[in-house]
């Protein structure tokens, strides 16, 4: 489903050069639930952003599904992300000015779809994460766990084949973290969604199919 070949990422500032990723080769099968671990600053987020086509690697190739992505332009990349990928972030990144349902609808705005259809799908996604009674709240009126569930609803509303989650439970206590983890595992089991998750939590990582460890930009297991 995802194939990384010889991925290298160098950050250059005027004074220093950081090798954030060093010849990463990685394949993720369709329907796999993969976790990535490693100490802070080892390049986990960088790797996830590259898989998510949010950032371009300095060297190397990424294919997602059958699609080689190296030559895609801004508009094609945007359309591709919209259809195939869903993102979950540690700090939720909800839009505080919008109600929960409008936040969840967001990916559908960039598809041709009627307002009614959008609302329908958003409501369904919120049901899946157990928040159908918070549709018209604003994000600031929700707890951290609830916000992350809204973010998950947003990530799944467009039925992407791949979900990329960067420390989705990082800001939550373990009970809430477990709830989030359950939702992701259900999604993986029942819908066959491929999931790549960065985590600091060994327990979470061991619930997934496979664990990749990074150290200083290199894959160590």
């Amino acid at each position, binding site marked *: 489903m995802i194939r990384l070949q010889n991925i290298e990422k160098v950050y250059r500032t005027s004074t220093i050069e950081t090798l954030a990723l060093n010849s990463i080769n990685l394949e993720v099968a369709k329907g796999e639930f993969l976790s990535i671990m490693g100490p802070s600053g080892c390049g986990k987020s960088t790797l996830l952003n590259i898989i998510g086509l*949010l950032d371009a690697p300095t060297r190397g190739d990424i294919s997602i599904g059958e699609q080689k992505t190296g030559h895609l332009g801004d508009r094609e990349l*945007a359309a591709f*992300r919209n259809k195939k990928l869903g993102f979950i972030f540690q700090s939720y990144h*909800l839009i505080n000015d919008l109600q929960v349902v*409008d936040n969840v609808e967001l990916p559908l705005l960039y598809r041709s779809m009627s307002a009614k259809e959008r609302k329908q799908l958003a409501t369904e996604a919120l049901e899946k994460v157990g928040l159908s009674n918070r549709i018209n709240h604003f994000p600031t009126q929700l707890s951290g766990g609830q916000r992350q569930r809204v973010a998950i609803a947003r990530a799944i509303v*467009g039925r992407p084949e791949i979900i990329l989650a960067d420390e989705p439970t990082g800001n939550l206590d373990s009970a809430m973290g477990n709830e989030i983890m359950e939702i992701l595992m259900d999604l993986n089991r029942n819908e066959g969604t491929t999931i790549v998750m960065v985590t600091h939590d060994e327990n979470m990582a061991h619930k997934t199919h496979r664990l990749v460890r990074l150290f200083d930009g290199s894959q160590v297991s």
Partner: protein
Amino acid sequence: MLRNYFKIAIAVLKRRKFFTFISLFGISFTLTILMVATAYIDKLVNDPYPDAKRDRSLYVNKLEQKMKDGRQSGPLSFYFLDHYAGSLKIPAKVAISSMSRATNTYVNNKKIVINYKYVNSDYWDVLEYDFVEGKPFSKQQIANGEHVTVISEDTKKEYFGETGSVVGKYIEADNVKYRINGVVKNVPVTAYQFFADIYLPYTVSKTDYKDKAYHGEYIAILLAKNEADVPAMRKEYEQMISKVPLPNKDITKMYSHANSYLVSYVNVGSEDTSGIAYVITAIGLFALLVMLLPTLNLVNINITRIMERSSEIGVRKAFGASSRTLVYQFIVENLILTLIGGLIGVLLTFIVIRVLNNAQLIDNLYLTINFTVLLYALAICVFFGLFSGVYPAWRMSKLNVVTALRQNN
């Protein structure tokens, strides 16, 4: 899609009350100034009273004589206009009138200022004054040099007070008594070519209207039979001017043009530096300056405002918005903001114009908001919205997704 933009635009406005206030204030205030200014200009340029046949008229306001060591420019003599312009073939009528002049008169020992204007009989045919009572003096009365006059409503009020008909009564100006033949509706002083308190036959003027000097204090309106004849009439006038003998050998060249109303209205400079260019540049610069400040302010505020929303930008991009879509979104948001500002501006303008009309800073000048002015306002709003939105939106769209997302909310 648009509904969503609207939702978020309103939400952002509500959240940032101070910012909203400042930018709305800037936009609406500027718009108000501009709209009052355009209403004023519109009044000057498009007001058809008493000059209703403007589209088939040409205006002669000055003659310029060039000498070896200078130039002399100003209104023309009655003789010149009557003799030369009056003999043209194309004009059906030639209205000749003096520039209005002020004189004092006394009513019950109270001094009042009266502006008088000498006119010929065509003047009453070319211009369509509204007669509240009576009628213009006739060609015969002019020829006889009768002391008759047409006065304005204001003058009637000031001289006679609230009273019935004054036709046949006498009014005194410069120690001469004139019998009133008619009363006309007021003309604002800004329509200086037509404005006067009392209109008199040119034959009663103290200076000799038969004097053959070219310069004097008269201007003329040439009226063609129809609009199509206007270019030919202009040409005929120019040809006539080129054939008029130079009055003496000091003068090397003479210029005089029959112009359209607008050109004649602003024709204040000399031949080489045309007045209209001055006036248009001045108005343009003024409008630009008035608009530039709030626009720059808006651009600035917009940049901060948009950068504050970098998390939103990052998320939208991650979930499939292209840079182009985002630029579009932010411009639409900005247009919504400016249009709301525009709406407030229109309301403010209504109030300001009302107050101005009541205060009567310029006698008899009544401003109205009309369709033209509203169109201007709309155009200005769109200009604001685009100009102040495009640059920030463009900067924002260049933002890298990862960078945008790292800056936590």
